[in-house]
């Protein structure tokens, strides 16, 4: 385990380095020169801008400058719009996106796992069929449509509106949670449907194992058989899925934060893309990618803890 963990850590570090290159080059190798776009918008002196942005040196020098700035001084660069340093701007907005993604993850699991279990132990009953169709509908409707439905109908029917001003979790935890619950539901809608289906299938598979028959034969109650003996084993593929969600949820947070007007990193990225604020775009993308790499690392290490049958070599 120790050797595996250290090798996995090393690989994560290498991935972060390579990812930073991808992020850096993504903005430079796609056709469409940054200078052309700025010039088309403003018509300013090309050489002066190029020097200001540090684009007058070869690409690898630019990359080296960017990386040393981040590593040595924690400086992600400065915004093209108002030349303010980016690091505090981004750091200030990360907690909200983190909270949104984490909350939607928790909401997804809280909703889908019990429903999946119920559908499995009452297989082929009417309620099982209804829940299965519900899961399929959830998978088919894009999250921005769900968000639209929530903003249009839920708020109209129940007279519940998201507060216009952002409530920070430090000041009013309950108010903050109340504000975030709808965006979190919308963000995780597709994952909820998917998890319901996977949970049901895995539960059905687990419940047909020999050790479950043994548990029944011992005369245990259904609740004990299902929760203590079957659930833990059926959960393993769900954990795998959770690892895969992180990039999807982060991508989706751009849309959801835009619809619900939440001041998170996704919203910041959306504005930066609209303003063509390139240093901001690469800085945010880099940070989000690093989060994805680290979460993948956590999921990989969590396997061994959850499933003792998995051996690392």
């Amino acid at each position, binding site marked *: 385990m120790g050797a595996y963990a250290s090798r996995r850590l090393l690989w994560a570090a290498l991935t972060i380095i390579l990812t930073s290159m991808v992020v850096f080059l993504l903005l430079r190798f*796609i056709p469409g020169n940054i200078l052309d776009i700025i010039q088309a918008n403003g018509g300013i002196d090309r050489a002066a801008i190029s020097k200001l942005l540090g684009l007058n040196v070869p690409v690898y020098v630019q990359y080296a400058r960017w990386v040393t700035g981040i590593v040595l001084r924690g400086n992600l660069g400065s915004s093209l719009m108002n030349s303010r340093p980016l690091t505090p701007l981004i750091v200030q907005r990360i907690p909200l996106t983190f909270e949104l993604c984490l909350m939607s993850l928790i909401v997804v699991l809280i909703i889908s796992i019990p429903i999946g279990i119920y559908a499995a132990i009452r*297989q082929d009953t009417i309620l099982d069929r209804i829940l299965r169709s519900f899961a399929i509908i959830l998978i088919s409707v894009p999250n921005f449509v769900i968000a639209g439905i929530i903003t249009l109908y839920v708020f109209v029917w129940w007279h519940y509106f998201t507060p216009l001003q952002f409530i920070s979790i430090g000041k009013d935890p309950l108010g903050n949670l109340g504000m975030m619950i709808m965006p979190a539901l919308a963000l995780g809608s597709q994952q909820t449907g998917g998890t319901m289906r996977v949970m049901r299938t895995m539960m059905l598979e687990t419940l047909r194992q020999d050790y479950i028959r043994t548990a*029944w034969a011992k005369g245990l109650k259904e609740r004990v058989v299902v929760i203590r003996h079957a659930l833990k084993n059926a959960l393993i593929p769900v954990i795998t899925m959770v690892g895969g969600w992180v990039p*999807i949820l982060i991508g989706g947070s751009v849309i959801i934060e835009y619809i619900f007007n939440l001041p998170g990193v996704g919203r910041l*990225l959306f504005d930066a893309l609209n303003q*063509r604020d390139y240093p901001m*775009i690469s800085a945010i993308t880099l940070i*989000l990618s690093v989060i994805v790499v680290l979460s993948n690392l956590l999921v990989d290490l969590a396997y061994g803890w959850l499933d003792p049958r998995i051996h690392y070599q």
Partner: protein
Amino acid sequence: MTNDNKIVAGGQPVKEKRHSFVFDLFKRMVVEKPLGTFGLVVIIVFLAIGIFAKYLIPYSIVQINLFKMNQPSSSAHLLGTDFLGRDVLSRFIYGARSSMEVGIGAAALAIIISVLIGAPSAYIGGKTDMIVQRFIDVWLSVPPFIVLLIMMTLLPHNIFTMIMVLGTTAGIGGARLIRSAVIVIKPNTYISASEAIGNSRLQSLLRHVVPNIMPMIIVAFTLGVGQAIMSEAALDWLGFGLPISISSWGTMNPWPWAPLAISLTIFGINMFGDSLRDLLDPRLRGGVGRYSLKPKKLQQLKKYFAKD
């Protein structure tokens, strides 16, 4: 007609009536998978609407009529008009066309890229495989939707770039799926036999490996169409997709027709894809059988044992 595949009493074998594989598959789909058939019907209907959009639209999709803005549905405009007085039904019909174009184009490109990367990587194996997989790891650590947003910020907004961008992004990630499929079939004897009779790696890859993962490729393509339509709509919706001048389900404003059509299409594609996977590859079928007795039966048994 009455005695296909049977031997008549006289001992004369009746000529066996053989159907093509596709026909058989279609028949099984209709008989065994009602939801999958429904999905297929939805896909065919929207495809037909897209293909014949030109002849189906009652009004021009660009005709602005400022005297008839935001009208509800009427006999003249079945789905009403939008904020510029354009006929919603016509734009909806044309939207099917662009959405289907993008969906099918992007999914086709994605599956080609996936096979080109995934199949050789798994077939060659060893160090090559490891290096290719690590590069895919790196690519997948940037959230895909953000890659799409960045690419669409820099590239011109039209259907061609949309297909290219969606196809490449999904294709590199999908290579992982193809790789795992190839790894499963690689130890089979027919692969070693193909190499033993002197086929080159490329030949065995093309003649034996790729045809044997065809079911997987078809299913991945089908599900990819739905994913592409969804991503396209999300990008349009944020203003990073097709320009508003092109009518697409994502750029359509009036609620709720376009979101309904997107959801219905994705529902159809998912159902069809899932059924297709069940029919083509029975090994992937899960959750068959019942673990215990039905609740009613359980109650009866409990009563029975309580007596003793």
